[in-house]
């Protein structure tokens, strides 16, 4: 028994107590941000050089899971910064009372439609899109309607709106286009869904491994294949109804409000030290100031015919009902 108690408590201590006496900033984010190929390593290095502190990233599957994690930890969270929520979650996140005002200048921030929020600061943005493999699919759908009504044998991979911000984004995209008929659209679309993954990285991994010819991602994803792989093989399908806009944000937790590094990090996030890394590691458009021009590959991307968004408050009010509606259809 003694040995057991000892080992359990030792383990618990190991997992809770930060051993270092150095100033430390804990950032919760999603796993593709901290991946070796993501922006995490570069951002960590740049900020640590600036602050002389230790940055620790803690990663979960995707943006919605991030909010769930924070809700579960509540006031006991270790997080100073939550990085990776998006505009469809900001209202709900704010209502938890677990965030503090950012209190930084938004002068460097630049996103479509402007930005005035007092709690969250954007760090990048993009438009959801279906990315397809030109070698597996000759004629991509030209609209959401064509996707919904198209050949069910051309499979797609999507993400779960209960864990993933792209998954939730698609839910809202369909809602924005189909309104009350969204459930019917999902009924048709369901036949095309190969699998529903908890996070973006899993879905995109399956796609690039050839498991399906199409995946829910961003208009900016092809830039990765052009720049990193020098190939035009993967393209985003432009949809006539327009594309849903995602603005990814970060916020300071109430715990982080007592850590001066937290606001320093948000400030840093809007500048070149962070923003330079975004386009070619997170493969999104920068939402702040860069010190170098954007790679020309970003100019060749699909430009949305129309930018679709829903009100954050509406989303917060209806998210559960809409997700339940999706679940009811998708569990058939």
């Amino acid at each position, binding site marked *: *028994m003694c*040995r*057991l108690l000892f*080992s*359990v408590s030792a*383990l*618990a201590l190991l*997992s*809770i107590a930060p051993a270092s006496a150095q100033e430390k900033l804990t950032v919760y984010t999603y*796993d593709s941000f901290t*991946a070796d190929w993501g922006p995490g390593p570069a951002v960590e290095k740049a900020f640590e050089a600036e602050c002389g502190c230790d940055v620790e990233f*803690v*990663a*979960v*599957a995707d943006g*919605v*899971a991030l909010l*769930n*994690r924070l*809700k*579960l*930890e*509540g*006031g*006991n*969270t270790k997080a100073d910064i939550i990085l990776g929520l998006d505009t469809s979650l900001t209202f709900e996140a704010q209502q938890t009372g677990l965030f503090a005002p950012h209190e930084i200048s938004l002068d460097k921030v630049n996103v479509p439609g402007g930005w005035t929020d007092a709690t969250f600061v954007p760090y990048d943005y993009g438009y959801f899109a279906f990315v397809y493999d030109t070698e597996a699919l000759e004629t991509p759908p030209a609209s959401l309607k064509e996707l919904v009504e198209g050949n069910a044998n051309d499979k797609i991979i999507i993400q*779960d709106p*209960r*864990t993933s911000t792209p998954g939730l984004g698609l839910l809202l995209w369909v809602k924005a286009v189909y309104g009350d008929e969204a459930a019917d659209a999902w009924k048709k679309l*369901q036949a095309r*869904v*190969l*699998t*529903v*993954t*908890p*996070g973006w*990285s*899993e879905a995109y*991994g*399956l796609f690039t*491994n*050839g*498991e399906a010819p199409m995946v829910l991602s961003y208009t900016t994803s092809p830039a990765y294949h052009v720049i990193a792989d020098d190939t035009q093989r993967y393209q985003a399908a432009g949809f006539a109804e327009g594309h849903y806009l995602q603005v990814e944000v970060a916020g300071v937790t109430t715990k982080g409000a007592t850590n001066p590094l937290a606001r320093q990090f948000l400030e840093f996030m809007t500048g070149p030290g962070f923003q330079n890394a975004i386009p070619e590691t997170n493969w999104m458009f920068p939402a702040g100031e860069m010190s170098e021009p954007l790679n020309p590959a970003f100019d060749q991307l699909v430009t949305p015919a129309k930018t679709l968004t829903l009100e954050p408050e509406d989303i917060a009010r209806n998210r*559960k009902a809409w*997700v*339940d509606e999706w*679940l*009811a259809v*998708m*569990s*058939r």
Partner: protein
Amino acid sequence: MIDRRILAGSIGLAAVALLIGGAFAGLAAEAFHDFGRTLGAIDAYLLRVVRFTVWQAALSTALSVIPALFVARALARHPSFPGRGLILKLFALPLALPAIVAALGILALLGRAGLVSDLMTTLTGSRWQGIYGLSGILIAHVFFNLPLATRLFLQALDTVPSDQWRLGAQLGMGQRASFRFIEWPVLRTALPGVAGLVFMLCITSFTIVLTLGGGPRATTLEVAIYQALRFDFDPARAVTLTVLQIALTAAIVFMLIRLGANMAGDANLSVSPRRPVASGPVERVFSAILIVSALLFVAGPMAAIIVSGLQADLVRLASDPAVHAATLTSLVLALGAAVLSIALSLSLVMARRTLELHRHRNAAPSLLEQLFDTGAGFVLVIPPIVLGAGWFVLMRNTGLVFVVAPLMVVTVNAVMAMPFAIRAIRPAYDAASARHERLAASLGISGINRLRLIDWPVLRRPLFMAMAFAMALSLGDLGVIALFGSDSVQTLPYLLLARMGSYRTADAAGLALFLGIICLLLMTFVDRTGNRT
């Protein structure tokens, strides 16, 4: 003065009751707190989940049990089939494998990028789509349960007296007649119990459905409970799902007990006596095909685990700090669970025996004694994920959910292993007590000294056996750690799932091989020790 052994047993029982009671308190509090929402959670989605849970379990049972009848019969009729002993050993392996390792083996073999995907593409003429969804779940369940059912049926067939076989042969019974008059009556008696056990295992299957389900279409109650807590953050729905899960498993366990099934499902096969079976060449060929197909089905995924595991970058994995941390965490937690499990079991066994000694020879056992006797058996009705869910709901507002992960893994797995541990320890302890009780009393040896000098030499073997079993069970656990795990507390199965999730399949395959080997070694130890005593 209360006997110390009874006191220890009472503490042990209280600990088990606390674990189960706490979980139910969490569920009940949530249900009463928000009764409307708990009721409101009964919607089309939930009904579909229940339907799918029962449907996949029924299909899995049929696909496992019916072929198993014939495979067992073929094995029984050909006692000198080449490699028969080896085949039976192999059929015992799936039960020892953690479900996530088996799931990975099946994916490595039959997945879209699996070892046989090119062959399947050629055979079917279209691109092999892999086995996500219902088909994957069924294959995995059959992989686990076909060998189990075969062994149980074979055990039943072994009870047929050799006189009957001889008589059958003398009467010149053909295949059909001997099946009808000799084999079927025995199989029919065993059938409900075996089918019930398999159905129970499939209805509480979590890991397989989580890893091979591939979306909301193929979700069972257990996976839905996990998703309601970790995805939706919807305790009301989790409570409703949990209540349904308990009702379902309780109903099945009730039926199983009525049918008199052996819930433990371990089959210790005797060496079958040679029996004269009249089998023609056609039957022999047919039986051989049957046995070989079953063998391939069971051996395939295991071979795939080895092949794909060896393809992984094992050197890099071996030097990966995350793997080191997860291995250490897994081993520490498994050891903790094992020590706790045998401590609790031993305390119950000792207390029961003490009460039995104190009671009048003909008096009925008291309620306390009965609780010491069968109390731990109740946990079999409660799947680990339900215990986890209860505590998760109870603790969700404390912010400690992720901090208690080690404690939850240790306690839940310790209690889950108790029915087995008690069965291993009790006969040895009771026998030792019958022999030494008076001697110990007359020499005045009690407490630690008694444990050390008198009980230890007899109990050592069953204790180690129970410990190894509890460790293997805990090492393979994914249900509890899936709920409570986070980056700060990762076990090997959790890391494996994470690597699968971020599509680092090679890493996952290497880890699966590693985990599979550890569990197999432990279970081999259990098996060896069990056979010797």
